[in-house]
């Protein structure tokens, strides 16, 4: 079976004229524009097989969203080639549109003041879906994703988590073969994120849906995707199955403890202390060596603990580690 997505040396540079300051600057800018080129994507190549679930991750400004926009037909690349489901996205945008679903975390495709039900009905017309088949599919998705109770509410009144669930259902109503998700869990609370991750994974497994999502949340990779492409500074720096990446880089947690004592003494394997203020202890825990419960248990045993926070290491650190590993 041919790959769902093939990308060869795709590049994108934004060109804009630098704006001068004040009135004279603006006038000078009109007469003698200083053109600045900003490289957003500096040559990426990869293939994604049909039915694969791939995460494209990287820090802000790395080029993830730009890559996704090029693959979904929103942006034209400066150079390079890509084939998505057999179409060149920026040339065959409308044909491709029938086969893909896209969810932009920040921008909605639903009608804000209309009930969800009406938005779905309008999308049926946008995608030229026959009424019966559409109704069946809609009902199935609504039930599976549990948005039945939201159908009569205006989209604008939904919480962010509820809205994202409806956006994903909306993107799947026309039975696409490929789903693009740009930061789908951004701004959501833990429960909402979990619901969305579960849904995407199950939907993909049930229908052989190819999923490409961008994120800077490492849990999105762990729980949804089988493969991760890391983009940093506009290039791909790593392209690996998720379990390999997890073993290498995401087995760490940061535990922050607020205590009555100015300093806590904890000596556990794989646990290193990070610099912090008095009464605050930040521990870098390698969960392969010591589990989080053990660390928290040891801390609580010392007594006088006022607050405990457990977090993933920041994305930048993961990337940094990746770089460090690549240097070797």
């Amino acid at each position, binding site marked *: 079976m041919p790959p769902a997505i093939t990308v060869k040396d795709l590049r994108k540079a934004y060109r804009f004229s630098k704006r001068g300051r004040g009135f004279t600057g603006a006038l000078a800018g009109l007469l003698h524009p200083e053109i600045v080129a900003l490289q957003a994507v500096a040559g990426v190549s990869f293939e994604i097989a049909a039915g694969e679930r791939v995460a494209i991750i990287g820090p802000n400004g790395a080029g993830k969203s730009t890559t996704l*926009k090029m693959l979904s037909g*929103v942006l*034209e690349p400066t150079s390079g080639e890509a084939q998505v489901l057999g179409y060149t996205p920026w040339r065959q945008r409308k044909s491709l549109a029938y086969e893909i679903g896209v969810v932009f975390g920040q921008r909605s495709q639903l*009608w804000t003041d209309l009930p969800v039900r*009406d938005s779905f009905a*309008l999308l049926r017309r*946008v*995608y030229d879906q026959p009424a019966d088949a559409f109704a069946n599919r809609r009902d199935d998705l609504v039930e599976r994703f549990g948005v039945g109770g939201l159908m009569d509410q205006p989209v604008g009144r939904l919480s962010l988590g509820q809205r994202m669930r409806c956006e994903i259902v909306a993107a799947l109503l026309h039975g696409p073969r490929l789903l693009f998700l740009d930061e789908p869990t951004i701004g959501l609370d833990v429960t909402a994120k979990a619901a969305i991750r579960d849904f995407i994974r199950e939907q993909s497994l049930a229908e052989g849906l190819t999923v490409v999502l961008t994120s800077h949340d490492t849990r999105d990779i762990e729980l949804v995707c089988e493969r991760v492409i890391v983009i940093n500074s506009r290039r791909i720096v790593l392209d690996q199955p998720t379990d390999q990446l997890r073993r290498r880089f995401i087995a760490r947690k940061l535990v922050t403890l607020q205590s009555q004592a100015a300093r806590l003494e904890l000596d556990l394997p794989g646990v290193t202390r990070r610099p912090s203020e008095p009464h605050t202890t930040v521990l870098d825990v390698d969960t392969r060596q010591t589990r989080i419960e053990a660390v928290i248990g040891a801390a609580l045993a010392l007594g006088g603990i006022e607050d405990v926070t457990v977090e993933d290491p920041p994305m930048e650190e993961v990337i940094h580690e990746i770089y460090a590993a690549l240097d070797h």
Partner: protein
Amino acid sequence: MNAVTTYAAQSLAAVRTSFADRTNFALQVAGMAVNNGFWLVLWFLFFAGFRQVGGWRLGDVARMLGIIYTLFGASTVFFGGYRDMAGAILRGEVDPLLTQPKPVLLRLLARESIPSAWGDLITGVAILISSARLDLGGAGLTIAAIAIGMTAWLSTSVIFASLAFWFAGARSLSRDLMDFTLMVSTYPASIYSGWVKIVAFTVLPAGFVAMAPVGLVRNPSWPAAAFAIGGAAAYGALALAVFHLGLRRYRRGATPGS
């Protein structure tokens, strides 16, 4: 045909949305109707004192206002997305539309319906019914004039809004340009001459939005019809060209906000 039914469905959805807050809707419609009524009263007072201007009398101005209110009202009720199209472009709201199969421009026009425009529509139709000739020919000509004017008005608005593909200040500029065009349109065409008239037929095409269609109703003739239709069609073509040029620029990533 598909595009037409899809458009109709979206436009009607936008209209239904505008009804959502009943009190607000009623206030807006009533407010606009009163506003338009006030202008009529002023013109009545003016002609009481001055009798005519450039050969135009109260009846002529009333008919002109009837046509303009109707075409503006209909445009803004059923294609109201043009009003904040520049804003939508600058906020990047075109992205989701690009991932869907239907034409982007139609989606942008159908997304909103402005409640107060019903006040314009109602006032306009009321004026036309009370002041225009009631025979079939007169009615047909008036409807044609409204259709021509709507085409020119929407085309002009699309051109102004498309400036947002090029620069960020276009949001307020496009609003101003639309206001200017309307302002120029709502005075008797006979007052304009020289370079002002040139501006009124080109940069701010009040000429094709109002003057030519109204002129067609006042003095129907085949040349007048050809001029009005030709002008509106030319602006329509220009609007499509400018929008698609702008959209290409947007898709190259050269637009502020994309």
